[in-house]
């Protein structure tokens, strides 16, 4: 991070007046620099302090009020949630949703990164560019496209299924298919991110390691397990944890595709909090639902921070 720049090593030997004056000057220079450093960060303080930190603490306070926000009720909102079957179903759904989606994103991203990396150098850019398209379109809008493909009467997928004599599937009105669909769309949007991260990591593995492994007679599989994976371990864990956070806290896909339905079966914490807090006007209860995410996200965040620090010190 910041280091002292352009300054000679401070002298502590007996001081003549000129040297003392120089030292004073230097100290003033450091102090001025610190003050300026602080001043330049003020906009950051305002944005992060006022619109992230304060809201996060405010959420804790809000979650302990009654619906009209007139009375302090302690943990009653949480107690109420814990007693509801729907809440537990949402928790179960969000865990299944996030874990499954991240698992497939990680696997598919890994495969795609290897495929692109196999190509001759000059062809890679084109493929990489094409495969990033799902990540670049705003998720709410690309999900609209999926929604249309899943449409019950006009479904383009069912048209293909009908062609091969398959069944007619009620993609978004059958709970299990609806759950499958939200995961599928999430995988579609998120896989490119994994691919790009892994591709960057693959390129950072020194080629000599593979040459040495080849000389030792390692098979392709052995190279993957003993060279590639250990070298990428850090990036893989950072990417997976980061994606777990984002997927856990998803809103766009479920809102556009199913809006929580059928019969609330596809709600995840984000959409459920929205339903309770904004649509039904019970702000404290909605805030409580959001806060349920906090401990899980906190643990993931701590591990990511550790991974990023390790990575920074390795480079």
């Amino acid at each position, binding site marked *: 991070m910041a280091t002292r720049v352009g300054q000679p090593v401070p002298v502590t030997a007996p001081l003549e007046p000129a040297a003392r004056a120089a030292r004073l000057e230097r100290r003033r220079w450091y102090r001025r620099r610190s003050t*300026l450093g602080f001043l330049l960060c003020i906009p950051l303080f305002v944005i992060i302090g006022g619109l992230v930190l304060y809201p996060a603490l405010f959420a804790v306070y809000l979650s302990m009020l009654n619906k009209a926000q007139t009375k302090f009720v302690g943990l009653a909102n949480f107690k109420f949630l814990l007693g509801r079957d729907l809440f537990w179903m949402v928790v179960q759904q969000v865990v299944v949703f996030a874990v499954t989606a991240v698992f497939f994103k990680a696997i598919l991203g890994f495969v795609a990164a290897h495929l692109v990396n196999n190509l001759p150098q000059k062809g890679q850019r084109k493929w990489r560019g094409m495969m990033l398209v799902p990540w670049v379109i705003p998720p709410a809008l690309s999900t609209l496209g999926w929604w249309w493909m899943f449409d019950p009467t006009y479904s383009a997928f069912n048209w293909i299924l009908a062609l091969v004599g398959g069944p007619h599937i009620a993609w978004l009105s059958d709970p299990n298919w609806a759950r499958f669909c939200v995961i599928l769309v999430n995988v579609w949007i998120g896989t490119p991110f994994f691919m790009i991260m892994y591709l960057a990591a693959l390129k950072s593995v020194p080629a000599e390691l593979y040459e040495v492994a080849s000389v030792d007679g390692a098979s392709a599989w052995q190279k993957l397990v003993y060279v590639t994976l250990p070298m990428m371990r850090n990036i893989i864990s950072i990417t997976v944890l980061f994606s777990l956070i984002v997927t856990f806290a998803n809103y766009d896909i479920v809102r556009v595709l199913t809006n929580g339905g059928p019969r609330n079966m596809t709600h995840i914490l984000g959409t459920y909090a929205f339903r309770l807090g904004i649509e039904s006007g019970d702000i404290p209860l909605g805030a409580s639902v959001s806060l349920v995410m906090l401990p899980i996200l906190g643990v993931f965040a701590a591990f990511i921070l550790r991974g990023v620090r390790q990575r920074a010190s390795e480079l």
Partner: protein
Amino acid sequence: MSIAADAALGRQPRGVFGRSLRRGRRWALILSYVFLVVFGIFFLVPPYYMLVTSLKSSSEIASMSTNPWIIAREVTLENYRMLLGQAQFVRYFRNTALVTVLVVSISMVTSVLAAYSLSRLRFWGSGLLATGVFLTYLVPETLVFIPLFQIVGKLGLLNTYWALVVVYPTIAVPFCTWILIGYFASIPKELDEAALIDGAGQIRMLLTIFIPVAMPGIVAATIFAFTVSWGAFLYPMAFIYSTDQLPLTAGIVTTLIKGDVFQWGSIMAGALMASAPPVILYAFLMDYYIAGLTAGATKG
């Protein structure tokens, strides 16, 4: 794409490695192309289908007698024309553009100043603050949107797009600051020394050395800020309900979809037009975009 030709032109191992290895590599390459085409189909089917739908007439979509994956009757721009002639849709575009320009400006000024300070000017707590910036990047929107709803309400901004101008920087600033710290920290200290000896002040140094040298990072951060504020969805859904204040994402989802008979052609045309600016930006600046995406985990 001629797969065989590409494969034949591909890398050929030289010398000591025998024919079997060369053949193995060739097969690996061909297989790679086959699977990449599968991936390509998976990734491009939704945008393709959106495009096809948007170019069809409503009667063709409704009749259901033709193959939905192709335009069987006639290509029509009617859906696009209809939307662009609709004051409401143009209004969404204007709102999104205005909000995005303001948010990108606010976010970039904030992040450049903060990143310069955190990477070069030390002050009490600056190390901790840099870590804090990274952690706020991990705070998802769904965690704070309800308290923000109240805060925005108290500020009197509820149901105006100014709420978005105030709130969106919280999504962009942490990541932008974080990657810019990385870019600034990688600038050699000798450059600062030379500038200091020449008598340049800190601000002049930032403007004349750091910003030009770290331009790729600044471009990457700008693209990021642009993309998140163009595509943000949860905050406008929560804070805005008047149609004249909505941005594109929320506007298309809440107002183009109405009634029992969906205007599929125009919904898809709207979604495509709304996606165009980030996609075009990305097509031109892909390398910066990718550098920015991967920098989050590798720099700092």
